[in-house]
C-alpha cells in the first residue's frame, strides 16, 4: 500500500482547474444572435434618439456675444483695455415666453482653463481652509504664490487670480422703464464644492484669517469681501468663486452666473425687451477670446445639446442598415458547413 502511494507521488492532481477542464460557456457570433441584436439595438437607438432630439429641441437658448470686437457692438467702447470701470448696456428682446426656470450663464471662448500649468496652479489645502497653507502656499501656485514682498497670496494660484469679474444686471424694459429682474446667486455651485471641498478657516471674523496675506494680484478686493451684500457668501465659499474654480474641460465653456427664479419670473421671462447692464472688467482680447451671456432653460437631459439625439438617430439607422447587409451576406455566403 505504501509502495503504491509512493509510485504515484508525482501524479498531478485531477482537478478541473489543473486539467483545464473548467466548465465554460463558449458563445459564438451566430447569425441568430447578431442580426436580431443589431435590429433591436438599432430600433432602441432610434427611439432614444427621437426622444433626445425632441427634448433638445424644446430647450430655448439665447446667446449674446458682448466682447465688443465689432464696431456696432454695444460694448465696443469697453474692448479697449485702457478704459477702466467701463459699463455697457446690451439691449435684446424676447418674442415669446422664455420658459423657466431660466439660467443665466456667462460664456468664454478660446479660454484654456484646461491648460496643464494653469490647472495645477491652485492649492487645495489652502482652499479647504488650512491656515498653514495660508502662510506657506503650495509650490504648485507658483508664480502666484507670493507677491513681490514675499507675502503669501491667498487664494494663491493662477486659477483664482484669473477669476471672472464682469458683473451683470438684468432689466426688463416695461413701458420704457427699466425694471430690475431679480437674479438668484445662491446654489449655483456644486453642493460638494460648497460644503466639503472649499472651506473658510474657522476664524471670526473671517478677515483675521487673512492677516499677513495679500489678495491675488488681479483682484480688486480681497477674498473676504467678494460679496458685499451677503457676508455669508464670502471667502472661499463665495458661489461665483466656486463656479470659477471648477475649471472647464474644453476651451469653449459657459459657467452659471445666476438663476432667474424669483417671483413673477418663476415661470420664465415674459416676452418683451430687456436690457443687460454689464460691468466690463475682464479682458479677453489679448488671447482672442470671446465673452458672451447665455440664457437657457433645461430639461431632464440637461442643457441644449442636439448632438446626442442626432448621434443616437444616426447610429440606430446604421445598425438597422448593417443588419440588412449582414442578412444579405449571411444568406448569400452562409457559413460553409463542409470540411
Amino acid at each position: 500500500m505504501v509502495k503504491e502511494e509512493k509510485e504515484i507521488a508525482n501524479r498531478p492532481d485531477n482537478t478541473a482547474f489543473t486539467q483545464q477542464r473548467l466548465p465554460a460557456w463558449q458563445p459564438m457570433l451566430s447569425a441568430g444572435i447578431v442580426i436580431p441584436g443589431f435590429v433591436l439595438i438599432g430600433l432602441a437607438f432610434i427611439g432614444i434618439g427621437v426622444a433626445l432630439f425632441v427634448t433638445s429641441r424644446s430647450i430655448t437658448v439665447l446667446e449674446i456675444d458682448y466682447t465688443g470686437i465689432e464696431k456696432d457692438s454695444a460694448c465696443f467702447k469697453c474692448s479697449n483695455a485702457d478704459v477702466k470701470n467701463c459699463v455697457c448696456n446690451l439691449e435684446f428682446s424676447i418674442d415669446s415666453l422664455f420658459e423657466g426656470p431660466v439660467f443665466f450663464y456667462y460664456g468664454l471662448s478660446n479660454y484654456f482653463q484646461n491648460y496643464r500649468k494653469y490647472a495645477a496652479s491652485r492649492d487645495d489645502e489652502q482652499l479647504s481652509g488650512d491656515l498653514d497653507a495660508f502662510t506657506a502656499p503650495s509650490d504648485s501656485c507658483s508664480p502666484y504664490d507670493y507677491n513681490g514682498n514675499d507675502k503669501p497670496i491667498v487664494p494663491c494660484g493662477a486659477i483664482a487670480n484669473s477669476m471672472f469679474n464682469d458683473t451683470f444686471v438684468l432689466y426688463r424694459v416695461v413701458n420704457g422703464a427699466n425694471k430690475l429682474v431679480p437674479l438668484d446667486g445662491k446654489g449655483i455651485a456644486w453642493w460638494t464644492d460648497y460644503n466639503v471641498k472649499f472651506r473658510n478657516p474657522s476664524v471670526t471674523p473671517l478677515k483675521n484669517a487673512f492677516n499677513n496675506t495679500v489678495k491675488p494680484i488681479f483682484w480688486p478686493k480681497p477674498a473676504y469681501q467678494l460679496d458685499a451684500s451677503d457676508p455669508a457668501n464670502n471667502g472661499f465659499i463665495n458661489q461665483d468663486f466656486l463656479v470659477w474654480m471648477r475649471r472647464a474641460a474644453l476651451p469653449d465653456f459657459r459657467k452659471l452666473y445666476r438663476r432667474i427664479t424669483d417671483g413673477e419670473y418663476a415661470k420664465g421671462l415674459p416676452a418683451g425687451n430687456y436690457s443687460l447692464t454689464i460691468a466690463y472688467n475682464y479682458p479677453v482680447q489679448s488671447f482672442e477670446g470671446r465673452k458672451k451671456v447665455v440664457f437657457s432653460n433645461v430639461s431632464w437631459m440637461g442643457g441644449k445639446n442636439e448632438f446626442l439625439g442626432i448621434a443616437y438617430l444616426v447610429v440606430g439607422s446604421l445598425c438597422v442598415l448593417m443588419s440588412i447587409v449582414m442578412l444579405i451576406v449571411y444568406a448569400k455566403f452562409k457559413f460553409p458547413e463542409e470540411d
Partner: protein
Amino acid sequence: MGSVTSFFGGLCRKQVKIEEERLFRANDRPYNLSYQYANNAIRTSKYNVFTFLPLNLFEQFRRLANAYFMFLMVLQLIPQISSLSWFTTAVPLILVLSITAVKDASDDINRHTSDKQVNNRMVNVLIDGELKKEKWMNVQVGDIIKLENNQFVTADLMLLSSSEPLNLVYVETAELDGETNLKVKQALTVTGDLGDSTDLLAHFNGEVRCEPPNNRLDKFKGTLSLDGQTYSLDNDKVLLRGCTLRNTEWCFGLVIFGGPDTKLMQNSGKTTFKRTSIDHLMNVLVLCIFGFLASMCAILAIGSAIWEGVGAGLTSFLSFWSYVIILNTVVPISLYVSVEIIRLGNSFYIDWDRKMYYPKNDTPAHARTTTLNEELGQIKYIFSDKTGTLTQNIMAFNKCTINGKAYGELFDFSGQRVEITEKTERLDFSWNQLADPKFIFHDHSLLETVKEGNPEAQDFFRLLALCHTVMPEEKNEGELYYQAQSPDEGALVTAARNFGFVFRSRTPESITAMEMGKQVTYELLAVLDFNNVRKRMSVIVRSPEGKLTLYCKGADTIIYERLHPSCNKLKEVTTRHLNEYAGDGLRTLVLAYKDLDEDYMDKWRKRHHEASTAMDGREEMLDELYEEIEKDLQLLGATAVEDKLQDGVPQTIEQLAKADIKIWVLTGDKQETAENIGYSCNMLREEMKEIFVVAANTPEGVKEELVNARKKMCPESADEPSVISSRAGLFWLQKIERVEDEKVEGEYGLVINGHSLAFALEKDLHLELLRTACMCQTVICCRVTPLQKAQVVQLVKKYKQAITLAIGDGANDVSMIKAAHIGVGISGQEGMQAVLSSDYSFAQFRYLQRLLLVHGRWSYLRMCKFLQYFFYKNFTFTFVHFWYAFFCGFSAQTVYDEWFITLYNLVYTSLPVLGMSLFDQDVNDRWSSQYPQLYTPGQLNLYFSKKMFVRCMLHSCYSSLILFFIPWAAMYDTVRDDGKDIADYQSFALLAQTCLLIVMSVQLCLDTFYWTAVNQFFVWGSLASYFAITLTMYSNGMFLIFTSYFPFIGTARNSLTQPNVWLTIFLTSLLCILPVVAYRFIVLQLRPTVNDKVRHKLRKEALPAPAPRRPPTRRISTRRSGYAFSHAQGYGDLVTSRRFLLRLPLKSRPALFSQTDSPLAQNQPQHYRTIAEGQEDAQSP
C-alpha cells in the same frame, strides 16, 4: 559564510593573472597555498545578504524596460516637465521590481542551500599522515583523499591507487555526460604501488605540472615528477568531479582542480538564453512604438510651439518631455510582467497535465523553461533522436523460424492472426529456475517443441546461448545478469536462457551453459568476430562429447551465400518468413551451423595462430581464414527481434504530420536500423514514390545524389536555390536569408548517411541538402554525430526561419536540444543529460502530440490574444490623450484622473486579460487533437504579426476617436439638469475614463472564447472595483484625509447621476463595439478560418470519441532491413583476452558494455566523451 569568503576569494582571484600552468606538490599544503588555487568550495549562488540589494537592482535595471521606466520616473520628478505625479510610474515600477527581487531571492536561497549541502559533504582526507574526515569545501589542491564505493568524486583527482587489480577503478559518469555505463580508469603503476598504506601515501611527494582549468571533459595533459622521474598523465588517470565510484572498494586520489576549477563547474552555467520569436517581434514592436511615441510627442511639441506663438522654444521642448511621460503608457511596464505571468501559468498547466504523466515510472511532464510556451504552437520542424525517443531501447525476442516452421504468432481457431496485447496469456517459464522473469513470449508451440527434444530447436537455442560476446554476471546463485554489447544480443541470449539453454559463465577458453537443466561446458576454440563488412559472427566450440561445431549468425544475405546447397528448400521457406518479419519491422538474424572434423580444425587453428601473430596483413589473413571456414553452413532458422517502439509513436507521428509539422529523424544508428524504424513508425511508407538514399563518400557524389533526387521530385526546379535576403531584428541589424519551400507532387523520403551528411553540411552543399530534404516528406539521417545533429538543426533554423524542436534522451542529443528553438528531453530514462539541457521534459514520445497540439496551440493562441488586446487597450488609452492635446493647448494635460492612470493597467484591466490568457481555449483538448489542422495558423504566424499589430493600432485609433469625440460632443456647452456645471474637467475625465473602461471590458468579452466562472468574476469584479475605488477616492473622507491627493471629490456623485452622462457612455461603448461585431460576423461568413469551422462544428456535434487504435497493419515489404547487430566492431577480442578475467571469480564484474546501443568502436575501456565538438572522432551514437 563560506559563500562570503569564496566571494571575496573570487574577487581576489580575478586580479591574479590568468593561470597558464598548474603546478603543485602532493602533501605540501603551504607550498600549494602559495599559488592561491581555488579550494573545493563551490558557489553557484549569486548574492549574499549584503550584496543582494545593490546587485539585484543593478541586474534588474540592466533590463531595458526597467531602465526606461526608471528614466520616466526621473523625468516626472522634474517639476517643469512632470505632467503626471510621480506615483503613476513609481507604484507599478516598485511593484515589478519587488516581485522580481523576491523571486530572485528565493532562487538564490535555494542555490545557497544546495551549495551548502554540497560543500558540507564529508570526505576522508590524508592530513599529517592520518585520514581525517573533512568537509568538501576545505579540501585543497594537492591533498590526498580516499574515496569509497558509491561515493561522489570530491574534486578532479589524479588517481593514485585502488583496491582493484591493476589499479583500475570504475566510475559512472551519468552526471557529467548522461551515460550510465561504467568507465574504467587506471592509475600509474608507480603510484598504484602505494596501495592503501597511509604511511607511504603521506610521504608521497610527487609534483604535478598540468594544464590550467578548462572545460574539456575528454582531454587532460600533465606530468607527474617523482624521484627525478617524469610520468605522463592523461585523461585515463583522472577522476572528475561529478562521477560516482562504482564496483571499487576504495581508491586514493590527489586533488588537481578544486571547486570552481573542476571540469564539471567549468562546464556548467553557460546555457544560452532562449527567446521566442514573439519575444523578438515584441522587441521590434516596442522599438517601433518608441519611435511612434517620439513622433507623436514631436507633433505635439510642434503644436505647442505654434499654439504658444513666438519664442516658445523652451516650452515646446518641455512639452515634448511632458508628453513622453503621458504617452508612455503605450508600452506599460505591466506588459512584460503579464507576459511572464501568462507563460508561467501555461507552464504550470504542462506540469499539471495528467495526460502527460507517465505512471509506469511516476514521471510527470515538466516545463523546465517557462518562457518559451507560445513557441510550442509554432513548430514547423521536429528533429528526433531514435533510440530511447521513438523506440524504447528494449529489444524483444519476438518471433523465430526453426527448420522451416515459424513460431511466435498466435492464431485463433479459424486461422486468423490474433493480435498480441498486454492481456494475452504469457508462457510460463517457472520450470526453469534460471529463467528471466521479465522475458515475455506467447507461443506455446515453441516451448513444446523444445521440450519434446526437437534437435533443430535445441541446436537453435544452443547456438544462441553460445554464439555471442555477452558477459554474464551472477551476483547470487541463480541471479543472472547479462552485459551485452547490443540490446539485440542480450535479447537473443535471454531468449535462449528462458527456453532452457542458459548461458552461465565464460572464461577465455570455455563457455558454461545449462542445457535443459544439465550443466555443459564447451571448449571455446575461436571467436570469429563481427564487423561491418562481415556482418556475421561465429564461434567454434568443442562439446563435452568432443564434437566440433561452428555456430554462425548474421545478416540473411551474407549467410545465404554461405549455405550448403542442401539447404535450398529450407532457404525458400525461411526467406518467406524473413520477408514477413521484415514486413513487421523486425530485426532479423539468420542462424546456421556446421560440424567440423578434428583434423581440419587442427590445421585451421595453426594457421589462425600464425595469422593472428603475423606482423603484416594480419587483418586480411584472418578474414581469408574466416571466409574459408564459414562456408557450406547448415541453415537452422532465423530470429526476429523487435526494436520496441514507444507506445503510440506511429499515431503521434501521423497526427503531427497532419499538423504540417515535418519530422526529421537524426540517429546514430546504421542505415538499415534507421530505415526500419522509419517504416515501423509510419514515416517511410510503401506508397511513397521513392525513397532516396544518399550514401556517397565524396562531395561530388553527394552533390550528384542530392541533385538527382531533387530533379526527380521536381524536374523544373531551378539549379540555384532562391534565397530571399531580408533584414529583421532590432534596428534591422540582423541579416536574414531564407530558402523558399518548393512544391512537390507526391511523397518522397530521404535517407542520408553520416559520412555523406558531413559533406552535405559543408558551405557549398548545405543549401542543396536543405532544398532536397525539405521537398521530402520524411528525412532520416543516420550515423550522425552529435555535432552534425546540431548542424542540421542550425541549417534549418537559419535558412527556413522556421521554429524547430529537437527531442532526444541521451547525452548525444544535448547539442541538438540546445541548438533548436525548443529542446525536449525524454525523462525517466537512465541518462539525465538531455533532460537537464532541455526546455521541456516528459517520459514518452507520444506526449509530444499533446504538448504541441494542445498546450502549444493554446499557449500561442493565448499569448497572441493577450498581446493584441493589450496593445489595443493601451493604445486606445493613450491616443485619447493625443486628441485631447489639441483642445488643451498642447499642455500635456491628461484626460483622466491621475489615479485612474496609475491603476488602469495595474488593477482595472489586469485581471480580466490575465484570465483570458490563462483560461481561453478555442476548442478543447480533444478537438485540438482531433483536428491537427488547427495547428497550422501558428506556424504561419497568423495570430500575431506586424500586420496584426498595425491592424490593432488602427482599431485603437478608431476607438480612441470615438472615446474622445463622442464625450466631447455630448458634453459641449451642456449643463446638468439643474443648470449646474457638468462640462468641467473633472466630470469630463470621469466620463472619458468610464467609457474607456467599459469599452475595454466589452472588447475583452468579445475576444474571449471560453467563459469560465473565473473570467466572469474577473471582468465583473474589475468593473465593480473600478466603481468602488472611484467612489471611494472621490468621497469626502478621502479628501479630508489626503486633501491634495484626491481633488476629484464629489465628481462621481455629481456626474454619474445624470442621464445624459449614461446615455453618452452607452453610445460610446456601442459605437466602439458594434463595428467590431459586424466586421467579425461578416468575415466569419465570407472567409471562415479552420478554427471557426471547428468551433462551429463543435456546437453541433458531441465530443469526438478518441480515435480507436488500429491494429498495426503488415506491409508487404521487399526490403530486408535491420539485422540484429550493432554496427560497431564486436567485443570478441575482449571476451577472449585475459585482462578482464583476472579478478576473483565470484566478485561482481563491472558493466563493461553499455546498455545503450552505443558502444564505442574501441576495444579499450571507454573514456569520457564531451558533448560538444571534438567527439566526432570516437563517437558513435
